[in-house]
C-alpha cells in the first residue's frame, strides 16, 4: 500500500493557524473523525496524548508525527497539516515543527498498512521530501511530492 493512498486532499490542512501542538492535533483528528476513521474524537486524542508522554513524536527537522494505536480508530488513516508558524513539540533537535502527520491505527492494524506508514517515516528523513512538502502550494502538490518520492524509494 502507498502512503499517497492513505492520504487524500481533504485530509491535508495547509497554512493552519495554531499556536500549540494540541490545537494542531485537534484540527487533524477532527478531519479523521469527519471522515469516519476515528469513531471517538476525545478517546483518540487521549491515546495520542498518552503516546506523546512515552516520548516526543517531534522527530526533528521541523517534523512531528503524533500517532496512536487506539480502540477509537475504526480503520487506518492519515492526516497532514502544515502550520503557518513553527510550533513547540519538544523536538529531539529543539526545532519548531511546521509539518505534522497524524497517524491513526486501529488496535489490530494489519501489516500492509504498517508498512505504508513505515515508508512515510523513512521518507521524512530525506531533505528533498521535507523541502517538497514545505514548498508545495496546494494539497494536490503535496500528494504529488509524496507519490513521486515514494516511487523513487520503491525502485
Amino acid at each position: 500500500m502507498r502512503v499517497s493512498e492513505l492520504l487524500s486532499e481533504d485530509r491535508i490542512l495547509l497554512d493552519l493557524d495554531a499556536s500549540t501542538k494540541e490545537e494542531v492535533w485537534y484540527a487533524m483528528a477532527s478531519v479523521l473523525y469527519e471522515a469516519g476513521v476515528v469513531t471517538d474524537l476525545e478517546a483518540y486524542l487521549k491515546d495520542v496524548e498518552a503516546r506523546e508522554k512515552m516520548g516526543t513524536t517531534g522527530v526533528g527537522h521541523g517534523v512531528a508525527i503524533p500517532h496512536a494505536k487506539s480502540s477509537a480508530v475504526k480503520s487506518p488513516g492519515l492526516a497532514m497539516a502544515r502550520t503557518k508558524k513553527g510550533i513547540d513539540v519538544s523536538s529531539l533537535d529543539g526545532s519548531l515543527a511546521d509539518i505534522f502527520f497524524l497517524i491513526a491505527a486501529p488496535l489490530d492494524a494489519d501489516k500492509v498498512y504498517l508498512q505504508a506508514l513505515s515508508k512515510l517515516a523513512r521518507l521524512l528523513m530525506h531533505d528533498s521530501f521535507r523541502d517538497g512538502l514545505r514548498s508545495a502550494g496546494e494539497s494536490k502538490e503535496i500528494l504529488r511530492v509524496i507519490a513521486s518520492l515514494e516511487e523513487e524509494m520503491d525502485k
Partner: protein
Amino acid sequence: MSKIVAVTACPTGIAHTYMAAESLKVGAQKLGHEIKVETMGSSGVENQLTEGDIAQADIVIIAADTNVDTSRFAGKPIYSTSTGMAIKDGAAVIKEALKSATVTAERYISETKEISARRSAQRTGVYKHLMTGVSHIIPIVVAGGICIALSFAFGIHAAEEEGSLAAALMQIGGGAAFTLMVPVLAGYIAYSIADRPGLAPGLIGGMLANQIGAGFLGGLAAGFIAGYLVLWLKKSIKLPKSLEGLMPVLVLPLFSTLIVGLLMVYVIGTPVKSAMDWLTEGLKSMSGANAAILGLLLGAMMALDMGGPVNKAAYTFAVGNLGFYVIAILVGTITTALLVTILKPSLAQAKTNMP
C-alpha cells in the same frame, strides 16, 4: 569505508524504528560507509541481518528505545543509542559509533563463539537436526544414567527388591529418564527441522518407537519423518485466512501425528525393529568370549563422533549392559587426556597453524 550493521526498535514500532533506520542509511551514505539496518517494528522484523552480515561488519549500532537482545553480536564492537539520536543526526551517530563502539564480551568468549559458529555453519541439514536431537537427550541420559548407576551401587540386583531406594533410583533412571530418551530425541529432531509444530508428531512418533521396540533407530526415523512431514504439510495445506489460526493448534499437530503414527505402526516399525534387534543381537553375541572386541568396538563407536549419533547408538545398546559403556566412555576420555598431556607442545603448535 567501514561496514556497519544496525538494529532499530521502538515501543510502538510504527514510526521511530523506520525513521532511525533511514536516518542511519542517509548518514552512512553521506560518510561513504556501507550499512545494513534491521528494523524491529510492529510489522515484524524486516531486512533481517544474517550471520554473514554480522560476521563481516566492523561495528554494530543499536538505535532502540526497547530492549534489544545483543547476544548474536557477541564479540563485535557495539554502540548503543536511542532512536531519537539516530533520527536527529544519523551521520553524527555513525561517526560517534565508529569512534567509541566497545566490545562488551571478553575476547575469548567471542573467540569461542566464533569457533562454535563456524562449527554450526558446517553442521547443516540432516546432521544439524540430528545433533539438535542428540544434544537435547544428553542431560536426560546423564541424569538417568547416574541414577541407574547409583541404584547398582546398592548391589547389582538391589533394585529388584520393591520399595527400596535402589528400586526408586532404578525407576527414576530406567523407568522414567530412559523412556523419555527416544521420544525427546525424535521430538527435537523434528523441532530442529520444522520448528515448534514438529515437536508434537516427533515426540509421539518417538514414544511409538519405544512402544513397538524400534528403539533408537525408530526414534531417528520418527523424528526425521515428523519434521519433514510438517514442513511439507505447512506448505501444502492452504486454509482461508479466517481459519489460519487453526493451523498450529489443530490441523498441523493432528494430521502430522496421524501420519507419523500410522507409518510407525504399520510401515516403519517392523523393519526398524528387526534392524535394531539385529544390531543388539550382533553386539550381544560378542559379549561372551569376545568381550574384549565388544569393548573395543563400543569404545570406537563412542569415540568416533564424540557424542554424535554413532556414539548414541552404541550407548543405547550399552544402557542394558551398563558396565561396557562406563569403561568405553572412560577409554575415550582417558585417552584424550593422556594424548593432550603428552602432546601438549605439539598441539599448541598445531593450534597456531590452524586457519
